[in-house]
């Protein structure tokens, strides 16, 4: 699904991603863990075509990608963003937000698809006419996930989808993502600062630090802390939580 070789990306004068190479097979779930400034979000945006200043070779769904994406890229790749408060247009109802991808790509049967999508994420048609400020953070994120599935993409990119949510809501959203993955034949790439989140959902993960991938492990090894790289081990230790001195 994804073949990335030597991807480098910059923000102005800063190189935020250096020489990253990885592969994601069809139907596979892949996690990218890193702290702020590691370049993980930029990497995801490069794949999505939202970040222009990059170099290297990138093949998504069999097609080589350059700076611009083709118009129907949205039918193959979709994304869920971190901030549920920012990823929905404040003046558009839920129905309007969900209809947008369909309208843009000329897909018909809009109402039926909207209802089906809302059901899929655990909301109901009463939510169609709500505005984002009338929904809770968890509900907004569900709408964002529903929106990302409207065009039935083959690859779903997720940028810290639960960081801004409470623990219990996070658990719900992760369960939803697990279910979506089971029901559909899709590849997932999820970026998070939380080792626990990545280990909970994914089969393989890459640990990023300062723009490079320092280690790639299986989820099982991640959970056990079977890590070789020094930074990765440090991150694992920090993720276990604070232990009091006295």
């Amino acid at each position, binding site marked *: 699904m994804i073949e990335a070789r030597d991807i480098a990306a910059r923000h102005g004068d800063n190189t935020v991603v250096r020489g990253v190479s990885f592969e994601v097979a069809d139907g596979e779930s892949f996690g990218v863990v890193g702290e702020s400034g590691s370049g993980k979000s930029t990497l995801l945006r490069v794949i999505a075509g939202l970040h222009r200043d990059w170099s290297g070779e990138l093949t998504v769904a069999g097609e080589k990608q350059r700076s611009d994406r083709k118009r129907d*890229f949205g039918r193959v790749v979709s994304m869920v963003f971190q901030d549920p408060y920012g*990823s929905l247009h*404040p*003046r558009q109802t839920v129905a309007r*937000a969900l209809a*947008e991808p369909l309208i*843009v790509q000329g897909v018909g049967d809009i109402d039926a698809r909207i209802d089906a999508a809302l059901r899929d994420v655990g909301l109901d048609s009463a939510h169609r006419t709500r505005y984002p400020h009338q929904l809770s953070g968890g509900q907004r994120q569900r709408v*964002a996930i529903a929106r990302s599935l409207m*065009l039935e993409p083959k690859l779903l990119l997720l940028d810290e989808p639960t960081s801004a949510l409470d623990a219990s809501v996070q658990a719900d959203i992760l369960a939803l993502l697990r279910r979506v993955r089971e029901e559909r034949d899709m590849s997932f790439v999820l970026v998070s600062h939380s080792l626990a989140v990545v280990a909970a959902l994914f089969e393989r993960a890459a640990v990023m630090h300062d723009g490079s991938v320092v280690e790639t492990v299986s989820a099982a090894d991640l959970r056990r802390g079977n890590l070789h790289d020094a930074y990765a081990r440090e991150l694992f230790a920090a993720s276990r939580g604070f232990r009091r001195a006295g």
Partner: protein
Amino acid sequence: MTVKLGASIVVLAALLALAAPLLAPYGPDAQSLADRLQQPGSAHWLGTDELGRDILSRLIYGARVTLGIVALVSVVTAPIGLLVGCVAGYFGSWVEAVLMRVTDVFLALPRLILALAFVAALGPGIVNAVLAIAIVSWPPYARVARAESLTLRHAEFIDAARLAGASGGRIVLRHIMPLCLPSVIVRMSLDMAGVILIAAGLGFLGLGAQPPTAEWGAMIASGRQYMLDHWWVAAMPGIAIAVLSLAFNLLGDGLRDWLDPKQR
């Protein structure tokens, strides 16, 4: 509170203007040389001018001209400014540079003088006055809209629309412009005070509505020579201009406060 006060005055003026034929005690052109330069009194509440015409009635009919100009100018300038600003703010790079430099050129020139130049070139009259004022009034909206779109450009819901395949044009029209509207509306209300003054200025110089049409600026001009002994002829239209400008200012100020917290 300011919104209500400003809005009520504006609405009152608008109602007066619309219902002019029903409310004005006399026709605006009804001359009566025997009654010229009468002091404000029971027959003529605001007095009469040099041709014996009732000033109150002329003010009411004049409101039509003034508010008409304000409305026309807004309808023309706001959409243009909004579009230019949003396109500049969203697309950035050379598009923004070109559009903003054009905007800067228009902003750099003094409004009244530029309006005068246009009217001088096009000839006097209400329509040309509207055109002239519109040409100099759109840049501030472009600035405001551009500022808003600069922040919106990076919003995640815009990213989502781009990813779904929406074209730049669609994003600007359907996603960005609706969000810039509140700021533009506020700016519009504040600007209207300025438009009233420019319109009155043009009228004062004889370049706006032509006689015998009642227009506040022109009324001040013709009342000038009688100022010392018959102050009301020039003062009444002057007060009307001041009050209406103030009303729009209050409206704009209040609107800004009212719309802001919601935006946050």
